[in-house]
């Protein structure tokens, strides 16, 4: 029982990341009909937004502190971040400590702008071209974005810690009435899951309960008719692309404390996210979210020691295996809509 709960919890954080990326991919596919291979790169850029902000916050100048000496006996040089001057030392420290959550505010506008530029500058010209061309050009774009990030930030992973308050672990077992220390779960992963749930909820609410969302949904169902009604559907779809980019970016921002960002993290996630989208059903938003969590949890179950003893290596291939089975038995995926990408 404890083991099962533990594996479900373990699956949730990875599943959250899959679900968020897959949600963005599906938004783009459902609205614009474009298969975006650069979506993983957007996730990666989001992660590097967090790195950038924490670097900006720790920008500092050096002062000579006469009261202290370093090991050579000279007056010690102390780095003073500029935020100290603005907010005082205590608040400054807190701001630096909370760099990752603060990056959310920083990442949203950045990712929106990147999304707009991408859609208007490049993807717009590929609506009428075959899906293979779309895959290829966004694949090229992903390589370019990845290399640009590598040029500025280097090839090594950059550790970006979570705020001090969330670094510990939560003893889930004790809370549920099991023996203590059986189910231990880091706070940050709980936060990641809650955050993902909020974002997913917000996206669905936005599409379901606002006029804008209603128009977008109508456009997804029949773009031409909505256009004929005198609505500028292209502009709304561009905004949706920006939104999808922001969702991917936020997934990346919050993922940095779990896994130090490096320039190829996006590609690693992209391959899996595509599988997730296909399993969920092309063009189905609930399908993408469901499949994301489902595959995340399946993956963590497959890496249990008991399972590996019977079927070694299962954790490495489970997602692909499930994808193959689903695609062959349910061609539309778990919740795919009729008539979307059925060739």
């Amino acid at each position: 029982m404890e083991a099962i709960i533990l594996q479900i919890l373990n699956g949730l954080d990875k599943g959250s990341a899959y679900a968020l990326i897959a949600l963005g991919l599906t938004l783009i596919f459902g609205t614009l009909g474009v298969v975006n291979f650069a979506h993983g790169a957007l996730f990666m850029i989001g992660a590097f937004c967090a790195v950038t902000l924490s670097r900006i916050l720790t920008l500092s100048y050096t002062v000579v502190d006469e009261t202290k000496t370093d090991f050579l006996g000279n007056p010690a040089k102390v780095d003073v971040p500029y935020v100290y001057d603005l907010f005082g030392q205590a608040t400054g420290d807190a701001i630096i400590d909370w760099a990752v959550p603060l990056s959310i505010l920083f990442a949203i506008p950045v990712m929106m702008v990147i999304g707009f530029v991408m859609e208007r500058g490049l993807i717009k010209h590929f609506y009428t071209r075959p899906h293979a061309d779309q895959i290829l050009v966004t694949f090229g774009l992903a390589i370019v974005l990845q290399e640009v990030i590598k040029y500025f930030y280097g090839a090594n992973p950059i550790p970006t810690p979570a705020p001090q308050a969330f670094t510990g672990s939560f003893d889930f077992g004790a809370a549920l009435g099991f023996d203590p220390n059986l189910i231990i779960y880091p706070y940050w992963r709980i936060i990641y899951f809650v955050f993902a749930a909020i974002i997913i909820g917000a996206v669905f609410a936005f599409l379901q309960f606002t006029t804008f969302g209603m128009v977008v949904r109508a456009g997804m169902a029949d773009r031409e008719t909505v256009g004929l009604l005198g609505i500028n559907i292209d502009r709304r779809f561009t905004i949706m692309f920006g939104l999808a980019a922001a969702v991917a970016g936020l997934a990346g921002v919050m993922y940095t404390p779990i896994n130090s960002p490096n320039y190829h993290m996006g590609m690693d996630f992209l391959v899996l996210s595509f599988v997730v989208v296909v399993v969920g059903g092309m063009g189905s938003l609930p399908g993408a979210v469901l499949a994301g969590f489902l595959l995340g949890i399946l993956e963590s179950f497959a890496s249990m020691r008991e399972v590996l003893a019977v079927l070694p290596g299962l954790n490495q291939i489970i997602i692909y295996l499930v994808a193959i089975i689903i695609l062959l038995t349910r061609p539309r995926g778990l919740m795919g809509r009729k008539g979307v990408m059925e060739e």
Partner: protein
Amino acid sequence: MLGLEKKDFQLLLVVAGLTLLAPFILNPFPESSGMAQFNAGYPDLMQRFVIFGIFAIGFNILFGLTGYLSFGHAAFLGVGSYGAIWMMKLISLNVIPAIFMGIVVAGIFALAVGFITLRRSGIYFSILTLAFAQMSYALAYSVLTPITGGETGLQIKSTDRPLLSNLEEGEIGRANLFGMDMRASFELNVGDWLFTFNAGYYIAAIAMLASFYLAIRIFRSPFGMMLRAIKSNQTRMSYTGLNPRPHTLAAFVISGMYAGLAGGLLVAMDTQVGPERMFWTASGEVVLMTILGGVGTLIGPVLGAGAIKYMENILSKINKDVLHQWFAFLPDGLEDFVITLIYPFIGKGWHLTLGILFMLVVIYLPGGLVEGGQRLARALRGKKASDEDGPKASTEPAE
């Protein structure tokens, strides 16, 4: 000639000439000149040109003719490599059975994978092939370690005693062709030039020419026409009473066997293999090669493979010092500025150049370098010639 039309035969002759004289053509700069680093005429790189040329030709038979975009083609290359190296470790150090084994193993694997993945088309096919390739990679990396050597891969070791070889105790076996060492080279010094004629390269080159010839035959055959029909309109094809599935599967298996041949040749050249050969970036690379060169054309994939391998090996070697030498004639401030501008695109950043180039090709030149060359030639010949070319070009589908 050889069952080819005159134009195709000329193309084959040109390609044969270029590959057989490659040691001369790729070494245009004297050893002592500053341009010597642009020489690509050393055996290791030349072998890569032709081997990846084979890989790309095979990929093009699938993608160029049927339009099925496989994102997991490196799996066949990897499986072929593993098959070949086991043949060398156990049976014989001769490269012929090893390469043959590579082709057979890759073909069988492609048959199995193709049988399943070809049930779907479009993006689903891409994802399915990607899933199979990633699965093979993950398995080769972890569970199948007894067969694949896991992370370290497989090499020929001093403890390997192939059945048909008479090695002395502790001697490390070397790949050979009836006793001729793959690494044997004949070096020719002409003035300041050094030309290397490597046995391994010529074996790979002959294999490449054979595959190229076969590809021409497939392109011009009724079977090739059938594959083009699949690309242009599968529904209409089945309404005329033809089942597209066996044809696509045949194309898939042929293309997998080409990949196996490339894998076997890679093993024959360097007698080692590792799982990273099957990673999806390797599959992406062959897609890049084919598109860059010109998808659906005969010569395109070979050009693309050459261009990418050249960039990978030559462009990536240029560093800041070299740039400083080149731009030494500029005033100091300007020199630094120019170098800062160029530096991100060369050396370690060559992938950036590749990515940009690839995007430009996909956006503006869907026919790749070949189409670029044709447009250039047409522009040079003037308007009149282009009128003559116009109707002729339009009768060729899938190009």
